[in-house]
């Protein structure tokens, strides 16, 4: 993605078309929608778990950065995923 179409003060919300939940059997977070399922990998699941309609993108980055302090700067990855999730209509901004 060349240019991000949102800024970090925006508050993402999960699109009401989707339901987000942990699936024990799959051992991952999933997004459920009519008759389908998107399985999220570890990092994607961690980010989506913080999308609650209250935290801003900036707050999500700060929390994850603190939680995974050994991982170096992960803000770029988080922004890229949020852009992707927005493009896929999993979230609204």
């Amino acid at each position, binding site marked *: 993605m060349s240019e991000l179409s949102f800024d970090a003060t925006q508050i993402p919300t999960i699109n*009401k*078309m989707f*339901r987000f*939940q942990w*699936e024990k*059997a*799959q051992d*991952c977070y*999933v997004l*459920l*929608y*009519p*008759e*389908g*399922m*998107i*399985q*999220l*990998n570890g*990092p*994607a699941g961690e980010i989506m778990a913080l999308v609650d309609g209250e935290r801003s993108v900036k707050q999500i980055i700060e929390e994850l950065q603190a939680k995974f302090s050994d991982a170096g700067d992960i803000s770029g990855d988080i922004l890229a995923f949020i852009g992707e999730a927005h493009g896929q*209509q999993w979230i609204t901004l």
Partner: protein
Amino acid sequence: MASNGSPCSAHPQLPIAEYGIEKPHGRPLWLLAELTYKCPLQCPYCSNPLDFADFGSELTTQQWLDVFAQGRELGAVQLGFSGGEPLVRQDLIELIGGAHEMGYYTNLITSGVGLNERKMAEFHKAGLDHIQVSFQASDESVNNMLAGSKKAFAQKLKMAREVKAQGYPMVLNFVTHRHNIDRIDRIIELCVELEADYVELATCQYYGWAFENVEQLLPTRAQLERAEAVTNEYRGKLAAEGNPIKLIFVTPDYYEERPKGCMNGWGQVFLTVTPDGKALPCHSARMLPIEFPNVAETSLEEIWSKSPGFNYFRGDDWMKEPCRSCDEKDKDFGGCHCQAYMMTGDMHNADPVCGKSQHHGLIVDARDRAEQVINNSEDFLFRNERNSRIIAKG
């Protein structure tokens, strides 16, 4: 999204998008509960068995809830309430509530006939996630002719509007065939007007009643190509307008040269339970000469993992030529065993849709006949109890 577990669109294919990890396999992610064979409509392409009238008994509320709980333990996440018409079951709200508490994403697959605003609101409260409404056509008279009901169309429109008004995601399912496919532009416009989130333009597949009616259903190649082109035009136009509606076009395999990877593989992701409790790897499989277990007698775990029926077509030991040596066998698993059985009499044969099948001529003949047939709705064999009993007696 692809075609779903609806009896109104024949063969479901579970859509699983992936984000970075491998797709799991071997778990019944999709549980389709065919609650009843009763239905107020008479669609001539219904995928219920021809002899459905012979299976009058239905699982109890408790038996269904027990099946749902076992399915959830096995990893099932999508639950479809289907039929027949699931609204006929008086305990539907209890079943929805129970399934929701277990953590299922719950889908009601309905004709909309028998639905009203109050029920819809109660279902929502009980935890119903999504309602799919099936239509027969965009046009009142064709719709009602196909449904065998004079009031169906107006009721469907009203219910589709109500589904959105109550905040549900909505899938509209149009089974297309030679009588309605030329109006696909109108069908799409109707779906846009009704604010559908997903639209399944599912070309009829030929199982159950649809197989009996294939001549009056199968579109010509020209009809199909035009419909696909029109759909693509609308996709472009709607996307340009910023409309998030998703149009899913399901082509009939009769115009393919390779079979579909039916059900994403036999006993891989999909489990159907019939009204009387028979567990099947797909909702057409009841026709096959295989003994399938019943959930009233056997646990779902044992059915899924150990029953001969669910293991029958797993792997490729069962394959004959041309499948056995085919380099695409891991992609299509030999295609659809029901289709092989219906058309060639041997379910171990390659799906005759495949150009490598020695029986492929049967498919070519059907295509050729589609060029000759004159549309005549009086030739339809409608799906109702009377016709079912006549057929069952043979």
